[in-house]
């Protein structure tokens, strides 16, 4: 392997899972997310001299993966988003998987999902997320705040029931 091939292979091995988890968090369907991420990595290799100099190459891959599938997802919308995913049985809670919380994440507006996923899995700061999504930093903070509020509501059912009495 050439130096560039080795460098890309290392980047690919280290970045596949966080990029895939980010895209799954946004689009829901893991199978199609895998295809989108694989295609994005192929594009990254085709443009590697440029992508390797990008300030956040993983974010470039995620943005490309989301763009690749955007029109397809838009046409199928929420129907595929939720139906394509095998939600966990209650017994999976031991593994940390909370199907109610996952459903709540995938019901958030897409911008809120993107901002939360980029923060969680790529550990991007507000300014970098803003650059990647082409929006203002203040808008990122607003989406993050609203998304977190919605998820907090899902995570505190007892308190919500008491408030509803």
């Amino acid at each position, binding site marked *: 392997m050439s130096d560039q091939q080795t460098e890309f292979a290392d980047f690919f091995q280290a970045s596949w899972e966080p990029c895939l988890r980010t895209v799954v968090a946004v689009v829901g369907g893991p199978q199609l997310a895998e295809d*989108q991420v694989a295609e994005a990595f192929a594009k990254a290799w085709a443009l590697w001299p440029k992508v390797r100099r990008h300030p956040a190459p993983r974010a470039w891959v995620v943005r490309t993966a989301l763009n*690749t599938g955007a029109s397809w997802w838009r046409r199928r919308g929420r129907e595929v988003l939720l139906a394509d995913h095998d939600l966990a049985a209650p017994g*999976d809670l031991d593994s940390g998987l909370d199907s109610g919380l996952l459903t709540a994440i995938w019901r958030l507006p897409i911008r809120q999902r993107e901002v939360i996923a980029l923060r969680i*899995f790529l550990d991007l700061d507000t300014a970098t997320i803003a650059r990647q999504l082409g929006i203002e930093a203040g808008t990122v903070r607003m989406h993050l705040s609203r998304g977190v509020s919605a*998820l907090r509501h899902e995570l505190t059912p007892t308190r919500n029931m008491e408030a509803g009495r």
Partner: protein
Amino acid sequence: MNVHGEMSDADVLRAASRSLSALPMASPPDVQSIMARGRARRRRRLSAAAGLSAAAAAGTVLALGLTGILGPSPARSTATIRTASFTLVSNANGTATLTINATELLDAAALQNDLQQYGIPAMVTSGSFCSSVPPPAGFSQVVSFYPRPTGSRTLVPPGTHPTVTFSPSAMPAGTELSFGVFQLSSGGQQADFMLINSSSYTCSSTLPGPPPDGAQFQIVRPGS
């Protein structure tokens, strides 16, 4: 928790991260197949750029002439065969990776000939599919796909260039790979794969159901 007994933002994000991280994820595909797809993409882009440059320099008449040169005629090198509808790359480990350009109808005769050049006995058909009953064992050792097959039929979204990696050394003696391509009424394409016995098989022009020991892909046409 904050002073109001609510989860903090960081706690909420940690819970979301924990839940999303618990979802099972597939292990990464072979980086060689990803790089082969990237190379195919780069070549297509360079070909398109070359075509545009030539057209700009020489005018529309010459551009029409170039279509015949850059289109169906394969541009060959020692390791790569490229046509308008597919790219076939010979990998260092003895495998070969086929990348399908789903926007073009596959040139079955050219692909069959090119696979044979790479030591892969294959029967590539357009509008028909050949099968053996029972099929020879070993299909999963001979070919691997991206996207990976899901169930009996795998849907390939527009914009995805499916790849097939062949391991000719794993082919059982006396077998060939059957690869049938059908144009669907929706505008997409269906591709079927299975191993067949070279001396015992039948071919049919009926659109097949998912092969019993093989793989079926339906490539969705953009806008469908």
